[in-house]
Structure formats: C-alpha cells, structure tokens
C-alpha cells in the first residue's frame, strides 16, 4: 500500500474536487430557487397552483434521485430534448433537493408567529411587502440549518454524476483505481476528502446562519459557529 504515485495524480484529483464542488454549489443554487418557487406556491389559497406544486414535490421526493438522473440522461433525449451532462446533473439535483427544500420553506414560513402576520395586515402591507419585509426575514434563519443538512446530503450524492459521464472526484478516483490498483488506499483518501468538504460546507452554513440571526438581533460566538456538528438527515421521506 504505497501512496507515492498519488503525487502524479494531484492535478487530476484537484480537478475532480473542483468538479464536485462546482456541481454541488450550482445544484444548491438551483435547489434554492426550486424550493422557494414550490414552497411559496404550495401555500397559495387557489387550489390549482397549490395542487400542481404538491404533485411536483411528491413526485420528486418519491422517486429515487438516481432514477431522475437516469431519466433526464437516457430517456429525455429520446423524447427530443437533450442536455449536457453537467446540466442534467444540476437539473436533477436541483429538482430533487428543491422538492425537499420546498417543505423546509413552507415549514419555516408557517413557523413565523401569527401576530407577525396580523401586524402586517394591520399595517396594510401588500402581500409582496408582507413576505419580503416581514415574514421572510424571520423565516430565513429557520431555513438555514435544514438547508445545511440538505446541502451535505447533496454533496454526499454527487458521486452519482460519475454515472452520467462527468469526471468528478469519484470518477478520478475510479480512473486511479483502474490504472494504479491500490483501491483501498484511494477510496480511503476519498472518504477523508469528502469528510473535510462536508465540514467546510457545514461551517459555511453556520456562518450564514449566524449572520442571519445577527440581523434579527441574536448574536452567536465564533466558538458556537465553528463547533463540529454532524449533519442530520431531513425528514427524508417522500410525502
């Protein structure tokens, strides 16, 4: 078990890390957009948009991520739409995690105290002002911890993009395995790299949360922000 040859692979591995981070960040942005769109729609009074959003959420939560990835990659081109593998990855991750995120958005908005809603009505704010100025700023810090969990889960799912021909970290490790052997070593290294990435993402989300809370007048110490906290999977089920 020597790791000497790994030096020669440093560039490839770094490029792989970059692809992994790039896919994760891009998909996270897509997922946030999807989460807000679905999460706000599913709260609407009108039954048509509400039902459509509910169906979309349940479909993307209830079918497996890998199935969605393969569907977009293999089946959709046969229907006449084809996308680049990166786009397939970002769209699949964005929709899947966006559907989970929609429940987070909905839950956080519902958790804002009723008096705040009544206050906005008493002040005669428009529905837009109500959301933008009063409700969302208070719901936002509540969303960050569950979003953080979803982000880690997403990072942990990115090795799947390797199956749609992208050369992420896992794909590079697989090439290394094929040409150098040493399988246990390279995948052991990979476990550590993913662990470090997960920790970095966790701290980034904690910083974001501390900032959001500070704006509401709740300060946290640097120690609280940097303390290790493992991810906790969401209420992960469909439905």
């Amino acid at each position, binding site marked *: 078990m020597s790791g000497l040859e790994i030096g020669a692979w440093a560039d490839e591995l770094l490029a792989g890390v970059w692809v992994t981070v790039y896919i994760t960040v891009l998909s996270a942005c897509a997922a946030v957009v999807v989460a807000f769109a679905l999460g706000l729609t599913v709260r609407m009074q009108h039954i048509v948009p509400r039902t459509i959003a509910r169906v979309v959420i349940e479909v993307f939560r209830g079918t*497996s*991520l890998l199935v969605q990835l393969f569907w977009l990659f293999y*089946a959709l081109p046969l229907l006449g739409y084809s996308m680049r593998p990166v786009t397939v990855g970002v769209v699949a991750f964005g929709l899947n995690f966006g559907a989970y995120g929609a429940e987070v958005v909905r839950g956080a908005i519902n958790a804002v105290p009723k008096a705040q809603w009544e206050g906005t009505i008493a002040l005669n704010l428009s529905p837009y002002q109500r959301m933008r100025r009063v409700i969302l700023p208070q719901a936002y810090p509540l969303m960050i911890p569950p979003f953080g969990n979803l982000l880690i889960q997403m990072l942990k799912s990115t090795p799947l993009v390797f199956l749609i021909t992208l050369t992420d970290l896992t794909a590079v490790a697989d090439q290394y395995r094929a040409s150098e052997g040493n399988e246990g070593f390279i995948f052991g290294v990979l476990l550590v790299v993913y*662990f470090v990435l997960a920790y970095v993402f966790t701290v980034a989300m904690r910083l974001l949360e501390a900032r959001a809370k500070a704006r509401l007048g709740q300060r946290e110490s640097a120690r609280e922000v940097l303390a290790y906290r493992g991810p906790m999977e969401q*209420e992960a089920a469909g*439905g």
Partner: protein
Amino acid sequence: MTWDMDYALDVLPPILEAFLRYTLLVTVLASVLAAVLGLVFAVVRRVRVPVLTPLTTAFVEFVRSTPIPIQLFFLFYVLPEAGLTLPGLFVGVVTLGVHYACYYSEVYRAGIDGVPKGQWEACTSLSMSPRYQWQHVVLPQAVRNVLPALGNYVISMFKETPFLFLIAVPEMVQEAVAIGGRDFRYLEPVTIAGLIFLAASYPSSVAIRRLEKRLVHA
C-alpha cells in the same frame, strides 16, 4: 418517440422481479441491521464507556458525513484485499445498514433523551438492574416515540438502494437501464422504475404520518 404501452407491459415483469428480489430485500435486511446496530451505538454513547464511547461517536460522525457511494467502493475493494470476498449484495446491505445505523443512533438518542427523568429515578428507587431498566422501562418508551422517524429513514434508505448499481448489484434501476440499453428504449423502463419507487414510498410515508398523529394523541 412516444410512450409504447405494449412495450411498457413487456418490460414490467423483469423490473418488478428485480424490485422484489433485490431492492426490497436490501431495504429489509439493511433496515434490520441499522435498527439493531443503531440501538447499540445509541446505548454505548449514552452509558459512557471510557474509549468505546468516544470511538463510537467519532465513527458515527465520520460515517454520516461521507457519501454512501464511496463507502460502497471502499468496502467493495478493501474487503477482498483483506481476504474476504463477499457478494455485492452483502457489501451493499452492510454499507447501507451501517450508514443508516449512524442516523438511527441519533434518532434513538433523541428518543432516550425524551424519556422523562422520573422514569429513570423510579428505576433507581426500585433498584432495578441496568439491564432490566433499559429493556423494560427506557427502551420501550424511547422506541415508541421515535417509530415514525425510523420509518422515514427506511423510506429514505429504500430510495438509496439504487446506489448499489455502483457495485453491480442487479437491483431495479440497474435492471431498467440494462433493458433500456438492450432495446435502446430507455423511456419506458426508467419511467416504470420511477413509478414503482413512487408507488411504494408515497403510501408508506402517508402511513407513517398517520402513525405519527396517532402516537401523539395516544
């Protein structure tokens, strides 16, 4: 290309068979392993054995933060190096089982913490043995409280069984893509695989939500 119902009905039986023989089997075996091992982790973390407790905590945190696919590869390639050649199915069950045991241990922990302090004190005042106390007082209450959360994890694990694709276990998605590749018609098999997932996971999660409500009111 449009949806061909005859073809869809043709490919349905092999996909269903892969679902029953692999996807469902893996889910059941791995959740049993996770339920047992997770309980062990939770109790070890709670009773504070010197060395063993910090090691378990570190292990749980590490496993929870690293991807299942990499864990699959790691075991798939490392076990033979150590002289153990095991079928992919076994590696898959162990990986998913251990990964979810780490999640389960957190859930059990919440359940154990939720058992009122008076219950522990009553055990002490009745001078029950620790074993009796855990087995007959603490765990029955703790597990009952977290049953819905555990159920949600089973569904989530169920949807991650396609990861076994990576180590060549012929589970449902593997089968669907193989059929798609053979006939170059991916639309029907992959859609069917998705619908089967939805048909199994949606009713289960509705059932769990009902159970949750009943337990709260009981």
